[in-house]
């Protein structure tokens, strides 16, 4: 397949977005019944479910830590989530992403509040259209908040890419495939810290700085959506609750 023209003469992208425009995002919290916390996210064509179980007893037992809890993260893509069938089981890419996402989430979760326990995070990609790791971590942090796991902050994420020499926000699969660079960024907005930063491709240091700024602004918007989704889930008017 030949490389499509990613930026047209009006400066618009292949799906009609402006360079600094996010895709349509939809979030829902508490979608799965058998988990302690769950979330669903749609970012353009990317669809992801995240579920959280625990804190519960550590299994296998030898991983248990006496002074703090452990996180177990599984990022997995469904066989039908991509154009060409993904083989069953965990591929190398999925194992690596599981680790990267776990390390990002570990920075905000208060692990010392549940010693000798573990929290399982499952991120299931139902349909992939670029930006699955960033959407996955956004959904995982919603699911953790829904499960009542103590954490310092939420995590929101998006990617910045470079296509046809232009910096663009929240790249989709086509832009990822034919573009020059892809830089996923995950941040904890209140802590104002970057918890995940990867770069695939080439960018100048100036472009990275500009890209981080674009990502930061977008992450604030995504975080506002997360807060909205959580508030929607727990819209309650309690009265006479005993403390």
């Amino acid at each position, binding site marked *: 397949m030949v490389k499509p023209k990613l930026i047209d003469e009006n400066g618009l992208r292949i799906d009609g977005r402006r360079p600094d425009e996010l895709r349509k995002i939809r979030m829902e919290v508490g979608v799965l019944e058998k988990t*302690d*916390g769950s979330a669903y996210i749609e970012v353009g064509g990317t669809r992801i479910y995240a579920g959280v179980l*625990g*804190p*519960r*007893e550590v299994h296998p037992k030898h991983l248990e830590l*006496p*002074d703090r809890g452990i996180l177990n993260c599984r990022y997995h893509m469904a066989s039908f989530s991509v154009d060409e069938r993904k083989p069953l089981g965990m591929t190398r890419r999925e194992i690596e992403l599981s680790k990267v996402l776990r390390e990002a989430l570990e920075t*905000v979760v*208060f692990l010392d509040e*549940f*010693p*000798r326990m573990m929290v399982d995070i499952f991120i299931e990609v139902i349909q992939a259209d670029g930006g699955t790791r960033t959407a996955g971590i956004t959904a995982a942090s919603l699911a953790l*908040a*829904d*499960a*009542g*796991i*103590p*954490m*310092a*902050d*939420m995590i929101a994420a998006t990617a910045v890419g470079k296509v046809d020499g232009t910096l663009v926000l929240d790249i989709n699969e086509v832009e990822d495939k034919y573009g020059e660079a892809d830089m996923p960024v995950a941040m*904890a*907005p*209140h*802590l104002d810290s970057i918890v995940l930063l990867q770069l695939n491709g080439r960018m100048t240091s100036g472009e990275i700085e500009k890209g981080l700024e674009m990502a930061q602004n977008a992450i604030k918007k995504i975080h506002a959506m*997360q*807060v909205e989704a*959580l*508030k929607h889930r*727990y*819209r*309650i*008017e*309690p*009265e*006479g*609750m*005993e*403390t």
Partner: protein
Amino acid sequence: MIYFTENELVIPGQLLADNGRRNGFGTYVRHGKIYASTTGLARVVNGVVRVIPVSGRYKPQRGDKVVGIVSDIKPNAVEVDISGELTAVLKPSERESTPLMIDIGDCVYAEVKTTGIRGTVLSNEGLQRITSGLLVTINPAKVPRLIGKKGSMVQILRKESGCDFWVGRNGLVVVSGPNPSSEFAAVSAINLIEREAHIPGLTERVIQLLRKLRGGGSGQA
């Protein structure tokens, strides 16, 4: 200065207060300011900023009364299963000559003595063995509603259904009544509370439901 309204739903990371207040459950301090660490309802209780969680598994805290099932008896400790995958231990005091009259499978009602890295320990004082009744599991986050303000809801349930209740903070509740129909009515009321905990006017609906079920139940019996 406090940055939330009473009973506002707060999200982890949200700024709650910035001076002179102590921080309680569900919050943490960074640079002298108090932030929420759990999703829940924020409020100030006796000058302490705290968050009442709206979801999540039960987390044992000192002083909580819990209902549990004895899962194992070891030479110097009794293991009690307190909902989900949590186990607590009960240590018989050394001076006590009479051993605890407890067997595997028994249902007990006890207070949490300590929590922490050594696990959850239950207190021997006030330990009760519940001999009969129905064991009901509800979401631990809804237990405060079942208890009500200073136990008002439980009192209503007791009065209207004629059953005894052992309400554990861990979400396990034992109902024991004089006949099956009153126990059935009480369990229905508990389910109603769990389902509609957030809708105002709950007390009225509970009383109505119990009167209806009790009226019909005694007619058939």
